[in-house]
């Protein structure tokens, strides 16, 4: 696959904002009414975006890899390694999420996550 898909930056900016809002709501004590709007925004990006703008089945999703294992084969993330140990790394902070673009059956990463990974083994 040699062709590159260029996505207007504005979509990534918008999705990053939705991600930020979701990150903030998760720590709020509220009756998840904000989360409803967040879900709605995600839904619009995932399904309606392509249908309404491009008249085809396509859309964006984002994923926060927080808590997932990290190693060098993960090219869906750009990581900074914190602490002094580099074995058994876990993603402990997500600055930007992975954004994927789906068109028909094809899925492609249009933004790598920016993350901080730390070793599960606690440094003493």
């Amino acid at each position, binding site marked *: *696959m040699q062709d590159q898909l260029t996505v207007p930056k504005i979509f990534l900016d918008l999705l990053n904002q939705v991600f930020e809002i979701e990150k903030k709501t998760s720590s709020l004590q509220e009756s998840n009414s904000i989360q409803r709007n967040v879900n709605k925004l995600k839904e619009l990006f995932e399904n309606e975006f392509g249908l309404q703008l491009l008249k085809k089945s396509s859309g964006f999703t984002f994923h926060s890899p927080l808590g997932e294992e990290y190693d060098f084969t*993960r*090219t*869906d993330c750009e990581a*900074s*390694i914190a*602490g002094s140990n580099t074995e058994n790394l876990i993603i402990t902070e997500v600055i930007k999420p992975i954004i994927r673009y789906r068109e028909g059956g094809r899925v492609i990463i249009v933004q790598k996550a920016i993350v*901080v990974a730390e070793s599960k083994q606690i440094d*003493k």
Partner: protein
Amino acid sequence: MENTINIGIDLGTTNSAIAKFVAGEVKVFKNPMDWKETLPSVVGFKKDTILVGSKAKEFLERDPKSVIGNFKRKMGTSESFKIKSINESKTPIDLSALVLKELKTFVPPGESIDAAVITIPASFDTIQSNATKEAGIQSGFKQVILLQEPIAASLAYANMKKEKELKDGQWLVYDLGGGTFDVALIKIKAGEMKVLDHEGDNFLGGSDFDRLIVEKILIPKISGKYSFENLENDLKSASGKLNKKYYSLLYKSEQVKITLSAKSSDEIEIDGFTDDKNDNVEIVITVSRSEFNELIKEHIDNTIEMVKRILTRNSFKPTDIQFTLMVGGSTYIPFVRQRVEEVLQIPINCEIDPTTAVAIGAAYFAATKVRQENLKGEQKGETQISIKAAYQKTSKEKEELFSAKVSGNINELSYRITREDRGFDSGLKKLTERINEDLPLVENAYNFFKLTVYDSQNNIIPTDLEMIGINSGFGISGQPLPEDICMEVDDEDHDGETKLFLAFQKNQILPLKRTITRVLNKTVIKGSNEEVLRVNVLEGPHTSLPEANKSIGYFEVSGRNISRDVHKGSDIEVTISISESRDLTVSAYLNMADQEFKETFNPKVRHTPVDLVQFEADKLNEKVDSEIEEAAQREDYETAEALRKLKKDVESLNEETSKLTQDDVTDAPYQLEDKKRKLAQAIDWATKDKRIALAKSEYLDEKQRCIKLLDDNGNDYERKLFNDIVANEDVFLTSTSPIKISEKTDELNSIRFTVLWRTPDFLVAIFKDLSQKGTKMNDHAQAKSLIEAGRFAIESQNWDRLSEVDHSLINLLPKSAQKDVTTKIGF
């Protein structure tokens, strides 16, 4: 085979790049894994894998015994790096060769790369230069030509200007990159360029500026507001409790640095940790461009001092220098440009792309260098490798084991497996007879992986293995939808009728979920039973009429169910989800009432309310009558006759449904519903030709109107949209679906109205029509002043203003003047 070398490589201290001259232009190749044009010059060693580039860079600071960067500074020395993880030593030449090999993988398969121009700093002596050449040979190039970096940058500039002969004289190349600084004085005489002198600092670049923002701006401001004994230590020490935050701050500082090149200030939001007193840190810090400039001033002034030294050494005055050519990513910073120009009093030149200029210049140079005779026409010995693979084609696991048996001559070969979405790269591994690899899967997607085999010089070796495809998230039993799933909605183009809105397309894989937002077209008053919203989910082709499809989920929301009035114009969000076991859940959320209505339907138990069957049978009766009348009018006697026969069946259906009681417990409602559906399908079929013909003629009329309007008033973008639709005419005009054709008509219509709403004639005509209705408007006084404003806008030919006036006047029209029809669904 090409006669010239054409490939240019910038083998940099911090970043490298590869470019090729093709038919007069230079193309910079992108890394197929991240589409970046540069590759960090960092090499890492894991047990059985070699990492080159950004993945290796991530581990550089934390695992310095196995990951090496900045080795270019050691080129030509006898020093070697002991690599802990593989217990071997690597020379700077070995490491450089690995970077060069990785760059070769940027070039699409099939392109021959056995010769290249590789750039070196102006400061490199003979030994260092020879070492670079050796790295090139080690990486598989049979011919290597070296070129000094400042000359390469100058060539990129000269070629961009398309000036064959540059004016004799001198210029400076100021190269401030991510981690190093170099300056060179270039002399050009009769078209020949020469480096006269150079200076540099191997430890200064953009990443130092990011660190300065954290240390000199962020840390003092956070410490000033919150209680920390030693925040800097908490952040920067590997064992510090806030060490992970340090990287987040560095990243944000880099972003701010980039933004400050375009804006005069930017904000950094810092949160997500607590201070020593356990108070939450939540602070927004504004960094202004002047603050940032102050921060880097000393460093920039140091670079300028070096430039001055060169000038003095070579007895040049600033006026002897034509310009300073700015190269390297950090020269994007406005202060760097301004300060260099201001202090040196030499005009700066920022016309070339500072990050790729050196590789581009090298490629231009390569285009002038003839390939050695013995390389021309040389055939690559192709090693045929056969790979027999075994893996699960579907999986619910997070990763799936891939095993393969390899036969053929595998000596000195290596392989790497990458995922097509670019989210996984195994790194380069030695090829063995048996390969076992855990492949991580993206959930609910088809995962494609590619296994590529390389020879010792990273040339691709063909194999018989095809793409590795693993379906994640559903097993063999995971079913595709057998039919389209649609929601019935009111048809705004045909009063009183409904149409299907496609929710899920046939063959989509279960489970599925989607939320559809619609605008209510009627008001439902709390407590009243007059108006009802009908949520009806149907199964069957989305191109047919709603009556012809099977209702699989239906419920009503009336005034009795709602906590407050919901008005026309407010939103309803209908969420349809179908589980793997085919349970259908439909929910409707009324935004205005903040109420959700939800029902789960198990399609085994058909949900067929009697009143809906009766209602639809009535509708069908009306429909068949009007179809017969229409067919007779257009003298289509064949269709009319077919419909008349169906009419008898519809009548008997009506009779039977009217006898049903609301609480009928027999199968009768289901049987009648089924009968209704079949009749509707028959009517649909009998009238399809008519509807297709009508849809086609509507489309062609709309197209003609568009052509005329776009010719006179359209812009390029609108014409492109139009041409895209017309280019597909063959497909949709020959389809058997009138709906598909109508969709295209709607798209054309929307283009036309976009154009019309800025066309003076249209705006004036709308205005005249509206101004005659002034007395009927809701707010007479406002209408009057708007009409006056409109007249003035016409006189002064202010069309934007007239458009605003028209829109405002439309909003003042009473509801009765806006189309008001009885709708079945309510949205």
